[in-house]
């Protein structure tokens, strides 16, 4: 009797895991000729971009700047992961460079072979920071990972290694 109950629970749990893994919304977004590589964005607009992936893809948001050494160090890992999980995850890069460094940011994106729309922070710092996370102090780089249903799986300041990004992406995909 007890054995049947445990086996039934196992089947339920396995079923849950399998179903969440197969229910994947696929929507690859790459830049077209009409889409600039680096679009201006406010905190409010960013929220709309993030929400547009809800139910379809997990989202990795990364705020970076060309002058930020840890941002530059971790950037290639995120690009690589976007390619690896392109059907399941959308990376949303936001440059927090000063306006006079916009071209430098664009050059860096090209150098890294980024071929999807990324964003350039505009407006005041505080509303932008608060739109992304109430617990973000404003230090760069900043990363936040959301599951497909929009739940925060992880967020952190400071740079990270490939494994940390991938582990949290995997968590986002299972949630």
């Amino acid at each position, binding site marked *: 009797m007890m054995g049947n109950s445990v086996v039934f629970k196992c089947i339920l749990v396995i079923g849950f*895991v399998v179903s969440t893994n197969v229910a994947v919304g696929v929507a690859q977004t790459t830049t077209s000729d009409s889409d600039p590589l680096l679009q201006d964005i406010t905190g409010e607009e960013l929220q709309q971009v993030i929400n547009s992936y809800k139910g379809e893809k997990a989202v990795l948001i990364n705020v970076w700047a060309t002058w930020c050494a840890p941002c530059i160090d971790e950037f290639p890992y995120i690009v690589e992961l976007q390619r690896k999980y392109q059907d399941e995850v959308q990376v949303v890069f936001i440059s927090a460079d000063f306006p006079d460094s916009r071209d430098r940011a664009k050059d860096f994106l090209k150098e890294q072979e980024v071929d999807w729309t990324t964003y350039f922070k505009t407006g005041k710092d505080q509303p932008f920071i*608060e739109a992304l996370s109430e*617990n973000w*102090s404003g*230090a760069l780089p900043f990363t936040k990972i959301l599951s497909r249903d929009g739940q925060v799986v992880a967020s952190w300041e400071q740079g990270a290694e490939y494994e940390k990004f991938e582990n949290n992406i995997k968590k986002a995909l299972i949630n």
Partner: protein
Amino acid sequence: MNINKTAHVFFIVLTIGLLAFFPIKDKSADRLEIGEKAPLTDVEVTDVSGEVLTLEEVAGENGLLVNFSCNTCPWVEAWEDRYNPIAELAKNNNIGIIALNPNAAIRDDGESMEDMKERAESSNYQFYYALDKQARLAEAFGATRTPDIFLFNSDMELVYTGAIDDNAKSAEEVEQTFLKNAIENLVAENEIDPNTTKALGCTIKWPE
């Protein structure tokens, strides 16, 4: 019986495994909160002049202003034209002021005491600029970036923390002079509003 036991263990392991994938709350920094006392005020730090100081000694009759700053951050550079005017305002109001450099991980890459001396000289700093060895003070304050401001009253309780103002790049285009207002209201014994603000900045380069 054995199958039953194995299935039970399998279920527990699977459940624990799944729990690891549940959503977690945004991780928050352990930052000093408004009203909390300044920590490690008796810890000695060395100023670019060679003088050894503690925060207790730097504090003025009306309080203490601590700015976690550095040499290599463009945000510091952007705000730097406001450093001396703020220092003057603080001193005129009997508030002690010190900038602390917490970037312990990159002392050999622009953040050494020699680099700090050069920066203090080239930018004509009119305030203490001391090395926060192993970022002990930054860690105790819960500072996260440079620049990062902590203003304390005469009882060394935190009354304002966050940004200098709302426009790093242009002093002329500042709309809200957060820190200036906080200093003036502290001295006038008025409410400080806002007492907490945020701005973008460079992460502190913590020691390994």
